[in-house]
């Protein structure tokens, strides 16, 4: 350093000082002039040393006087000049004390530049005495002070003056920090880092590069990258230093007080402002943070990564070994890196999303849950999955060699539909799924459901999905066939039912009508004789009346079967009805050697019922029983009782041929009959009547011979039909 020019300059300055000059300017002059003399003393020729010393002492005396009156302003200057005097005089202990006094006073009173100067001069003192490490520490403080003061040129000058110390520093043990050389943190560095970072599309690699760049250039011991993941922030990566090595671990950990000062990180996230703590353990708004307390954090730097006003992450750097590690210059560079990182992070996120999306699409295509092919409007199939190839039974070679065209897999009669689909594609870019057929390689056909979309509107290429609906088609056809058969069957059944019904009705009604006609004819013949036989004619006429009445009864009976609602509800004594029917059928039973018994419950309540319909039921059941015994005779017993539920239970048992095996349930169906002359209506009518009364009718085979038919009638019931 050119201390002699400094001394010259100070002499010139002295000439300019007039009594009117403010005391502060005068003090500045005396301070720097004194330091110039002191510094020059070491290198000055021995004969001039005394002269310099005297000038120095003079300045000191004046500074001492001022310091007595105003120690806040002048004490630091006086102390530093005093320290230099002590140094020159070899009073080492005095010098050390005074250097410290100067530093403390300058710091306490906010004279950053004086503090820096004091550190620098002290550093020189220690360096000269061989205390390299102490000197280095003082020098760093000096640099820091100058930087804060804004004297960047001075900082650079210092850096250049002590190159060996930098080297020594970076190679130092665990107590030192990695120093980021100032000259590397220039635009070139920024560009280099940002290029490295921005060129990286893989998130993991980007994070690695980013962390290394940050640690290297900030001189941090540890760094964390915090990225938003869904609703919360997660620590994505941690970088640590070990000697010259930087180790970056990708992780996915919670943001907790155990690993970082949460209050700092939260503050940055909230305000989107960076936080720099020169010495976190000294009193700051974050000094109570549990992490800072527990880990005795010193230098802390926390920067938001912001892309287009959006927080994409937080970079946290720390050096717990030394305070004031992060310089404003470094921070400026880091901010640039951080913003570049923010953009890159966002890019990689987008890239990753894109990758995920593409993977999903790939998965969709390769899952082969449906046929997918890629096509162009010229008719080529440029890609397809296995499912599609399998469906149309082409091989992958056919596809690769470009032999597959979607016009080839479309049968001629579907071309028209396909043309419409193409028009639809060109206008709407998509085709709603529609059913068509595809031709397989062997010429057979496969029914499909197909839909398509252009990749971009107005484009030439697109995707189509194809579902094989053979099974569905088959099922549909089967269902249709079944429907048809059922319809036919229903028709046939209906027709045969109608035929049977009309046949049965015709037969039933024709009988009495035929009898009536015959009786009428007989009657006429008796009357037309030469000697009319009046008694015979009367007899015939009476028979005619009976026959006609019977025909009318039958018609009424059939009508009542189909009629809804019965107007003849009354309280009916069921035992009474049974007895009437027994009397009525006595002759019929006798003619087939059938004995009739009744076993009637004496306190059977009357029920609300249609008497005629009840008669019909009993008549049907009893006549069936008699019919069943017509060849061999037997016993017919009619029983009435109250069952457990308080319902009337009437049973009609015979010892006849029994129920048709395996068809016990069918006997109540209309037109089911085992008798050549049976209408198949008797039991159907019976059932409809009983059910209309809220009861139930069923048949059981007897343990011995014959069958028992039983029906129930609820008490106080009103017929519903």
């Amino acid at each position, binding site marked *: 350093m050119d201390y002699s020019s400094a001394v010259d300059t100070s002499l010139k300055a002295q000439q300019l000082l007039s009594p009117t000059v403010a005391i502060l300017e005068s003090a500045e002059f005396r301070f720097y002039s004194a330091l110039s003399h002191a510094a020059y003393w070491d290198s000055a020729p021995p004969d001039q040393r005394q002269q310099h010393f005297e000038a120095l002492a003079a300045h000191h005396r004046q500074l001492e006087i001022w310091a007595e009156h105003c120690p806040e302003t002048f004490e630091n200057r006086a102390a530093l000049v005093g320290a230099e005097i002590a140094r020159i005089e070899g009073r080492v202990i005095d010098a050390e004390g005074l250097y410290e006094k100067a530093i403390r006073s300058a710091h306490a009173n906010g004279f950053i530049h004086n503090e820096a100067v004091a550190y620098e001069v002290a550093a020189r003192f220690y360096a000269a005495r061989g205390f390299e490490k102490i000197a280095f520490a003082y020098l760093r403080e000096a640099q820091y002070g100058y930087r804060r003061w804004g004297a960047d040129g001075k900082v650079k000058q210092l850096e250049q003056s002590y190159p060996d110390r930098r080297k020594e520093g970076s190679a130092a043990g665990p107590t030192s920090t990695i120093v980021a050389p100032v000259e590397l943190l220039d635009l070139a560095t920024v560009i280099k880092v940002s290029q490295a970072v921005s060129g990286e599309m893989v998130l993991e690699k980007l994070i690695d590069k980013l962390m290394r760049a940050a640690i290297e250039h900030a001189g941090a011991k540890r760094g964390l990258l915090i990225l938003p993941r869904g609703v919360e922030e997660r620590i994505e990566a941690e970088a640590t230093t070990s000697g010259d090595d930087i180790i970056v671990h990708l992780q996915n950990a919670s943001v907790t007080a155990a690993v970082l000062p949460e209050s700092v990180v939260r503050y940055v996230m909230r305000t989107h402002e960076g936080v720099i703590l020169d010495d976190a353990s000294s009193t700051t708004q974050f000094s109570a943070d549990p992490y800072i307390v527990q880990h005795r954090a010193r230098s802390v730097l926390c920067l938001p990564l912001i892309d287009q006003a959006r927080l994409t992450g937080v970079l946290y750097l720390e050096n717990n070994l030394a305070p004031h590690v992060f310089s404003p210059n470094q921070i400026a560079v880091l901010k640039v890196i951080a913003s570049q990182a923010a953009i890159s992070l966002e890019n990689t996120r987008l890239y990753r999303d894109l990758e995920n999306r593409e993977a999903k699409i790939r998965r969709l295509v390769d899952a082969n849950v449906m046929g997918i092919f890629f096509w162009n409007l010229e008719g080529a199939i440029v890609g397809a999955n296995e499912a599609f190839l399998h469906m149309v039974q082409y091989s992958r070679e056919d596809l690769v060699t470009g032999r597959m065209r979607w016009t080839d897999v479309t049968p001629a009669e579907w071309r028209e539909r396909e043309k419409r689909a193409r028009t639809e594609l060109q206008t709407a870019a998509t085709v709603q799924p529609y059913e068509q057929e595809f031709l397989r390689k062997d010429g057979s056909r496969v029914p499909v459901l197909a839909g398509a979309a252009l990749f971009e509107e107005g484009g030439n290429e697109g995707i189509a999905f194809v579902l094989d609906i053979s099974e569905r088609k088959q099922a549909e056809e089967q269902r249709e066939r079944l429907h048809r058969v059922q319809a036919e069957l229903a028709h046939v059944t209906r027709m045969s039912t109608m035929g049977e019904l009309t*046949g049965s009705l*015709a*037969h039933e009604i*024709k*009988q*009495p009508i*035929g*009898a*009536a*006609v*015959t*009786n009428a*004819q*007989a*009657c006429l*013949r*008796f009357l037309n*004789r*030469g000697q009319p*036989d009046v008694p*015979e004619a009367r*007899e*015939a006429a009476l*028979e005619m009346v*009976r*026959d006609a009445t*019977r025909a009318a009864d039958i018609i009424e009976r059939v009508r009542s079967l189909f009629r809804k609602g019965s107007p003849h509800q009354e309280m009916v004594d069921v035992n009474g009805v049974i007895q009437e029917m027994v009397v009525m059928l006595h002759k019929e039973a006798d003619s087939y050697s059938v004995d009739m018994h009744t076993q009637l419950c004496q306190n059977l309540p009357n029920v609300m019922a249609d008497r005629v319909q009840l008669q019909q039921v009993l008549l049907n059941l009893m006549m069936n029983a008699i019919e069943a015994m017509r060849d061999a005779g037997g016993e017919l017993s009619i029983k009435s009782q109250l069952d457990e539920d308080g319902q009337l239970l009437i049973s009609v048992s015979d010892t006849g041929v029994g129920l048709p095996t395996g068809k016990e349930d069918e006997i109540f169906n209309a037109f089911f009959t085992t*008798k*050549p*002359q049976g209408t198949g209506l008797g039991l159907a009518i019976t059932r409809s009547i009983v059910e209309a009364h809220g009861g139930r009718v069923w048949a059981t085979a007897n343990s011995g011979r014959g069958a028992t038919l039983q029906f129930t009638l609820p008490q106080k019931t009103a017929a519903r039909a």
Partner: protein
Amino acid sequence: VTRTDDATVFVIDDDVRMREATERLLKSVGLHAELFATPKDFLTHKLTDGPSCLVLDVRLPGMSGLDVQRKLAEAGVHIPVIFITGHGDIPMTVKAMKSGAVEFLTKPFRDQDLLDAIQQALQGHRETREQQREIQELKERYETLTAREREVMALLFSGMLTKQIASKIGTSEITAQVHRAQVMHKMHANSPAELGRMAERLKLPTIS
């Protein structure tokens, strides 16, 4: 009004009222009816001798009219059958007629149609019975002929003269004439032509 003889009309009908009405109708024209509810009842009934016919519904409980017809034929009972059917059943009609049914009436039919059919059937039965009786008599007469007389009878109705017969059987013409007279007498024939008709009815083979 009508001739009353020992003719009987058998009626099988499962409907008692129809049965009785039919009986009444027959009675009005002086016909005697016997009524049966089922074919079984009829088949187990001892039939009276005399002209008769059967009025039968083709659809009867337990057994069809055709079955009844077949069973009667099996039992050697030759009795005209009048079928009545509710539905015009062509195949059944054809079968019934082939089996010798006299008439097939489809309901509803005019009473006169039924009565005409019955009268026709009864008349037919009477004639059949008469023919059968005559053939029976001829058979009995034929039975009384000796072997030589039967031989002579065969040659006679084949148109040979006595002289030819004598030469044929190797006797004298006188002996042949005696045989011829014996045959004519035993068979109650007045001429060889009448004898020829008798042989025809007896289905005797002619000798050329």
